[in-house]
């Protein structure tokens, strides 16, 4: 079984002590990062987290807590207002044009809403990064694209336009495009949103297998606790712009931290409020 081989090689390569994030080399590090889109409102205030090379790490938190924002900082779309965002030991904020280009070449990002190019077919969407960045002949690109599409179960949809896809299919095509160039670092923004239970577990397994088979490092942003617990190595919980809990899967499952319990068990009451700050009901309906 290839899966057991991968699992065994993982154990051989990373002894159990290595599974704690600081013990081996980190590909991604955020050190006390703060950021706000406007000066008035801080989205992240002092986030510190680390992603070791070769690992699949989940970043979880309620919607609007700044998960997508963390990914934007990592791929250099925005700059942290304080603190350091390091990828491969290099600060993203201080990269010049060439360094940013090289950084992004090694990066795959799955956008929250897919961001497929609407004027290109499914095939051309997946072929896009290959055509822009490689000199590969057409027939090799053809085979590579069909392989990527096959991995997400959509080889038959190659000729369709993005407008003809369902939300879940579009997400899987975007996933195929993300991994088109076998990136070193893959960032997945809500890859499970809008997927049916079957594609959900297929995509989950695919993300895990890609990570191990291609020797990638992956960050998975999600609020799907159940599905991500099955595949990830380590979990960070974010709330109100800071890391409130983190640990590997067994320790998260066993945790008694009220935040973790609320999130894992899906209770509406707890440290995280379900309601946006508001007046009391009595005041509003008076």
């Amino acid at each position, binding site marked *: 079984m290839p899966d057991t081989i991968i699992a065994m090689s993982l154990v051989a390569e990373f002894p159990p002590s290595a599974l704690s994030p600081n013990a081996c080399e980190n590909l991604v590090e955020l050190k006390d990062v703060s950021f706000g889109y406007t000066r008035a409102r801080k989205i992240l205030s002092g986030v510190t987290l680390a992603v070791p090379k070769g690992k699949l790490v989940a970043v979880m938190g309620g919607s609007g807590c700044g998960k997508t924002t963390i990914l934007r900082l990592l791929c250099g779309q925005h700059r942290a207002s304080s603190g350091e965002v390091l990828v491969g030991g290099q600060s993203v904020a201080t990269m010049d044009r060439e360094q940013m280009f090289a950084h*992004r070449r090694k990066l795959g*990002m799955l956008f929250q*809403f897919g*961001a497929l190019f*609407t*004027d290109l077919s499914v095939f051309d969407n997946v072929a896009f990064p290959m055509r*822009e960045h490689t000199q590969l002949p057409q027939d090799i690109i053809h085979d590579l694209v069909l392989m990527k599409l096959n991995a997400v179960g959509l080889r038959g949809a190659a000729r369709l336009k993005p407008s003809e896809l369902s939300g879940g299919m579009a997400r899987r095509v975007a996933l195929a495009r993300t991994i088109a160039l076998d990136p070193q670092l893959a960032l997945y923004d809500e890859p499970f949103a809008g997927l049916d239970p079957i594609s959900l577990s297929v995509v989950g397994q695919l993300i895990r297998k890609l990570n191990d088979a291609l020797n990638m490092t992956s960050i998975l942003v999600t609020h799907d606790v159940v599905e991500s617990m099955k595949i990830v190595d380590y979990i960070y919980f974010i709330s109100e712009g800071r890391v409130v809990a983190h640990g590997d899967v067994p320790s998260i499952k066993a945790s008694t931290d009220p935040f973790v319990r609320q999130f894992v068990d899906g209770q509406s009451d707890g440290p995280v409020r379900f309601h946006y700050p508001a007046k009391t009901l009595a005041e509003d309906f008076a």
Partner: protein
Amino acid sequence: MIAVFDAIGRVGSAVIAGVSRIGYATRFLFAILRHSGPSFMRPRLVIREVYQAGVLSLIIVCMSGLFVGMVLALQGYETLSRYGASESMGVLVAMALVRELGPVVAGLLFASRAGSAMTAEIGLMKTTEQLAAMEVMAVDPIARVVAPRFWGGVISLPLLAVLFSTLGVFGGFLVAVKLIGVDSGAFWSQMQASVDWRYGVMNGVIKSVVFGIAVSLIAVFEGYDADPTAEGVSAATTRTVVTSALAILALDFVLTVFMFRGEIN
């Protein structure tokens, strides 16, 4: 008193906002020029946009040209026949079309048909994070998305203007010769004798090139600069049509002044 100062302040800030927007657009034009390499290395990118902007505008431009030519001939006949100069109808129709109406009306039609589509497409690509996705893939959206559309527009408009004038002259011919009964030989020979190649035709082409640059720049700039929301894109599309129309008419005046050969007393 305070209200007066407020009003002056509002006018001032509107002027400053307008001027700085022109500044942004100019810098954007330089960015497009700097990143035009891929457009010329990969002509397919531009050809696709010539199809989108030019070929798809053919019907509206040709139909309008035909009708404008026919109306010109009808209106011109009333005046010219009063002086017994109805043979000069060919001259009137051709001069008006080639120098003025061809570039201007084709430019206005192009702005509302192709320019608005360009703005909406680029604005929606921004709204749905397609431009951000491209950037994160280390592909420059100005080089890959904006520049080909800009050049597609710059190439298309002069060709459309020439087609507009050609169809207009044909429309004038239909009305003057076939409907009213002006002598066909006089119609064509007077036209040929009076319309100067350099002064008439080339100046018209220069105008349409300038309009092509202006409209395409406005269209791609508004799209790229649009607020990434549904209202933002719709507002940007409207701005493209309005600003393009004003720009065409203002530039037309300026260019005509430079090309003017008569004497002003």
